[in-house]
Each structure stands twice: as C-alpha cells, then as structure tokens.
C-alpha cells in the first residue's frame, strides 16, 4: 500500500498558484496529482481552480490542462480519453470539478460518462457552495448554511434543504469505484487515489474541501474542520468498489454536529431547533446508508442537551 514517503517530491501542481491560504481545493488537487503522476491529463471546469491555477500568462500545472466551460467535465473527460486511446497513448484523463459543477449544472454530463463507464477519473471537490462566484447555494450545501442566496433573514435563516446525497446517485450508475476523501485523513486519501488510478472504468473520487471565505473559518483550521466533519458524521469516509460499500474510517462515538458547526461562521446563526434537525438528519443518514448491520449505535438521534448552547468561548476560539 502506498505511503506518504512513496510520494514524489516534485509537485505537478506547483507553488505560486493564487488560491486562498488554507484552501481545501488546492490541497486536494496538489496531493491527488502527486499520486496520479505525470501521465495524467486534466480537465477543470469553470471554478476557482481555473482562476487560481491558470491565469494567463501564468500556470501552475505541470501536466496537460484543459478547460472550456462549466457543465461538461464528464463529456470532456470522455473525449480526451477517446483521443488518447485512439492514439495508443497511456494517459489518465482526470477531471477536477466543484460541487456546483457536479451536483447541479454538470450532473447530466457526469452521469453520461458514468453510465458509459468511460475509463476516466472524475474528482468532485466539494466545498458545498458556488465559491468562485462568491458563495451561492448549490445542491451540495448543507442544511442551515448561510450563503448569499440563502441569507440569514428575519423570516428565513440559511439553506432549508439537506445536502444532496451525491454518493448514492453516482453509485447507482454501477461504476467500478466511488470513494469519499478528506485531506484531514491523508493516508486514507492517498490510498484511495492510488486505488482509483489502478482501476479501469469510471472512477469517482469525492473530496471534502473546506473553503475559507465561503465557510467563514480560520485558514489554519482546514485540516481540523475536515476531521471534525468526519467525527460528527457531516462527512463519511467510505468507498464503494463494484457495489460493495465499506466504511474506511469509523468514528468511535460520533460527536455532536455542534462542535463542527461552531468552527464556521456560515452555521453560527443556527437555532437550537435547526441544529437538532441537522443532527437528526446526520444520524438517520448514518443509520440508513453507512451503519453495518448489528454494529452498535454510534450516532444518537437526540444530542445531549448540554452541547446546545453557543458559548462565548466558541466565539473567541473561532472568530465572529
């Protein structure tokens, strides 16, 4: 199994790009491409990654890079791969699309490539909103979250829908490999990228990528936030290989979502009632999709009352 030591020192996504400090997307790209290696050709749809990775006359990519539009990652990977295969070149076509470009506008194109089982790797960098355009709600935005299109008003506070279950949609295409990843879990991260690299057919890597301005969080806390997301069940690390689902990291006893939420300004307005709704959704989802039969309960539907209050200590620790 691949370890951190096995990774090449050379960055194929170089320093000098203009992403925000602590950007989860940039970290995920850099580490994924280190595992994927030189014989990779990348497609990036409209997103921050186009702007911070390639603004003429500068560019951070040391592998071939292609970009055209927003909604077509799946189709561009299909075309690219077909050309390489026809020309007898052994090159892996890899797409790095955001949640907007995957959950919403790019869903059809992704579904087409998945259904055809085209031999490509589709990576979704999920920062749970349209960040490049300035933080608007997407189908990947969690319940309660503030965005500029789900503002905290006097009548309605934040996003009223729960995050779309993209994993179930993608795996319904009966593809060879789907996995969720987090940069807070680097060994699990590189192992899954390596595994995907060596499988033939449509592979989907779903990466959880904190966005500093979009989540209104401390740029030093990117890794910690992803860890807390996993510990609270707001993100679950698992993989589905040929239909077999396996949890790759199981929290001992699931933490309340409150600790995770209070690290981020986008959730800090949430009422106790909304936090409870979200907590119930997390536990239901865990029990429905991830909990193995007969395994002990690790997520309680009703969180302990004492965790409810937003304390001054929270505000001091994590900013306004």
């Amino acid at each position, binding site marked *: 199994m691949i370890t951190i030591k096995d990774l090449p020192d050379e960055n194929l996504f170089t320093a000098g790009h203009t992403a925000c400090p602590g950007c989860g997307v940039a970290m995920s790209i850099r580490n994924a491409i280190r595992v994927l290696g030189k014989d990779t050709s990348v497609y990036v749809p409209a997103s921050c990654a186009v702007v911070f990775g390639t603004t003429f*006359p500068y560019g951070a990519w040391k592998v071939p890079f292609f970009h055209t539009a927003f909604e077509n990652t799946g189709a561009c990977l299909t075309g690219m791969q077909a050309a390489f295969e026809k020309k007898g070149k052994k090159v892996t076509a890899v797409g790095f699309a955001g949640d907007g470009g995957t959950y919403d506008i790019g869903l059809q194109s992704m579904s087409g490539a998945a*259904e055809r089982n085209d031999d490509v790797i589709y990576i979704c960098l999920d920062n749970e909103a349209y960040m490049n355009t300035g933080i608007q709600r997407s189908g990947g935005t969690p319940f309660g979250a503030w965005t500029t299109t789900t503002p905290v008003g006097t009548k309605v506070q934040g996003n009223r829908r729960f995050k779309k279950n993209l994993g179930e949609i993608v795996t319904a295409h009966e593809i060879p490999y789907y996995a969720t990843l987090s940069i807070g879990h680097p060994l699990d991260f590189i192992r899954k990228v390596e595994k995907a690299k060596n499988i033939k057919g449509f592979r989907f890597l779903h990466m959880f990528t904190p966005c500093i301005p979009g989540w209104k969080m401390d740029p030093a806390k990117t890794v910690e936030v992803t860890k807390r997301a996993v510990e609270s069940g707001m993100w679950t690390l698992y993989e589905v290989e040929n239909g077999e689902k396996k949890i790759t990291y199981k929290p001992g006893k699931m933490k309340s979502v409150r600790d995770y939420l209070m690290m981020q300004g986008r959730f800090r307005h949430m009422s106790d009632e909304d936090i409870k709704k979200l907590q119930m959704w997390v536990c239901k989802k865990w029990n429905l999709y991830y909990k193995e039969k007969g395994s002990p309960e690790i997520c309680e539907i009703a969180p302990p009352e004492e965790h409810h209050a937003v304390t001054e200590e929270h505000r001091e620790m994590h900013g306004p």
Partner: protein
Amino acid sequence: MKKVITGDHAVALGAKLCRVDVVPAYPITPQTLIIEHIADFVNDGEMDAKFLTMESEHSVMSAAAAASAAGARVFTATSSQGLAFMYEMLYATAPMRLPIVMANANRTLAAPPGIWCEYNDSMGVRDSGWLQVYVEDNQEALDMVIQSFRIAEDKRVLLPVMPCLDGFVLTHTVEPVDVPQQEDVDSFLSPYAPDIMLDPARPTMIGIFMPAEYIMELRRQTMGAVESAKKVIGEINDEFAKVFGRNYGGMIDTYMMEDAEVALVTMGTVTSTSREVVDELRKVGKKVGLVKLRFFRPFPVDELRKALSGVSAVGVFDRSISYHGGGPAFNEIQSALYGMTMPVVNHLAGIGGRDVTREQIIKMFEITIKAGKGEKVNTINWHNTRGETV
C-alpha cells in the same frame, strides 16, 4: 464509384474517407442518418474511429473539443436545436483553434417546432468563429466534408468548419454521388498532426483564464485566421478540382455572370432551381445571372464585389429572417457592397421548409429587374407568404 445515396449518407461517407479518429454523436432530425451510417461503418469494422454515444449535443461538442485538443481528428453532425444547445461550446472551440468538422443539417430552430429546412439555426452562430459553407447537392456535401478537414487543419487557418446542407431537401433525398477512392482522399488529406496538443510528454495548458490585458489580441488572431482562410479555401478548391475533377469555385460560384445585367444571390439547394430559371429567362432575352454564396464565414466580400460589379440590381435570397427586417445574407451583402450604387433587394422564401418553386424564383428575378430599371419595389420581399404579399 457512383452510388445513389442521401445527403446524410454522403456526409457519413465523407467522414469515413477522412479517417476521423473520434466521432461524438447525438441524434437529431434530420441529421440522425449521418451518425447512424457512421455507427454502421464502425460496427462493421469499415471505419476505425471511436464512436461516442453522448447524452446531449452540449456534451457532443465538449467531447469533440477535448478529443481535438488531445490530438484527434474529430467529426460530428447536428441540426437546429442541437446546434443551439452547443452554442457555448462553438464559441469555445473556435478561438482555441480546434479544427473540428461538423455537418449541420439546416432545420427550423423552434419556436414553432418544425423539422424542415430553414437557416435560422446556423445563421445564429455565424459570429462564433466557425467557418460555414452551404452546399447545393449531395455530391458537394460529401466533397465539402473532405475539403473542410483540409481547410480546418491548414496551419494558416486552424479553425472548426461547418458544412451546412439543407434538411430533408438533401439529407433525406437520394441523388447519384461519385464516391472518391480512399487512396485519392489519403493523398489529398494527410493525417492530422497538430503542433500543440494535450500531451504529458510536452505539457501545455489549453483554455486558461485570460485577463482583459490579453483578450483583444486573441480576438484579433482569430479574426486573422478567418481572414487567411479565404486564400486557403481557394487553393484547396483548385487542388480538389485537379484531383477529383469537381470545381466548386471556392468562396462563391457564378453562373452566366459575364454579361449579366441583373443577378440573384442564392444559397444551398435553391441554387439548382435558380440555374434552371436563369437558362429559361436567358431564352427570352433577359440578361440575368446567378451567384451562389458558398462560404458565409469567411464572408466573400471581394469576390461578391467583383462578381456583381457590372449589374444594375442584385436580388438576395434568404432562408431565414434576422429581425432587423431582412435576412442575414441580405444584411451582409448590403454591407459588402457598400459604396456601390446598384439597388439590393431581399427575397425571403422557403422559410420553415416551404418549397421554393421555379415560379417564385422567376418572381424574384422580375422584382430585381424592376429595381434595376429604377422602378419602385419593396426592399424586403416575402415570397409565397399568406397575409401581406409581395
């Protein structure tokens, strides 16, 4: 070898003869026969191409762009709503200088929904940077697929090309077609060998974000490529004529224009009928001529000015309406003839797939002849149309 085939079949044979590498496909009437024929060729082992069954036209042009950027020769076909759905990707492919060839079967762009010939689909994308050529018969449809790849891949051009054929009038109508020999096409068209492509051995970034400081230069370069295509189109037309014995005239073609006093400018299949009408009118002493507008991009400004320099009036046939009043061909020809003094009148006919008959074309000539004599006529003439008549 002569075959009696539909226009769609001829186009598919053209793509096969060009040994295309990748064909992303999506069905739409009246283009569908093209991709069906190609699917047959591929599954019968007659054609060594990657045939990709995409899930929309937007994805077709996306896959085409990516495959072309990765160094493949790419062909596809579309029509009407499909072309409209690709709109965004047409504007992406041309400035990236990706030499894709896509046949467009001209069809009404809804509303109202209709499936017959109208040019309002391809005219809507005339400013995308794609070159456009309108063909008259099934032979020209096949031949222009071959020529389109030569034009598109010429290092002085490097632009996508759209051969346009009249929906149903050509796509679903059989005509005898001389199918070129594979070895002749092979010697006419070399394999595609781009200088820049997506290749890990020599990584490059295509389609990168560009600040305002640079975009104007890129636009000027694309304009330069469209402009230099004019010369290339002429050269390739002449070379094609030498090898295959069929000369289409390049940017435009003319008929009986040497001593013509009045000219009609036509596009597509209406040209064939108009040629018959010219013969008929010549027999009764009317000195009329015909200009076939072949390429719409690049637009044959100099060629038209030269061909029309001696006439007293010009009639322009249009098979679609631009809502400023007349049709797109009329608008552009007026602009091209700026400074010349003869009247230019517009003849709108065949819109939505209505037949354009001999009688209508005679009427077009009659109105244009009147205009040439200084008589008052309408500038915009709707032929064979209910309600307000011409």
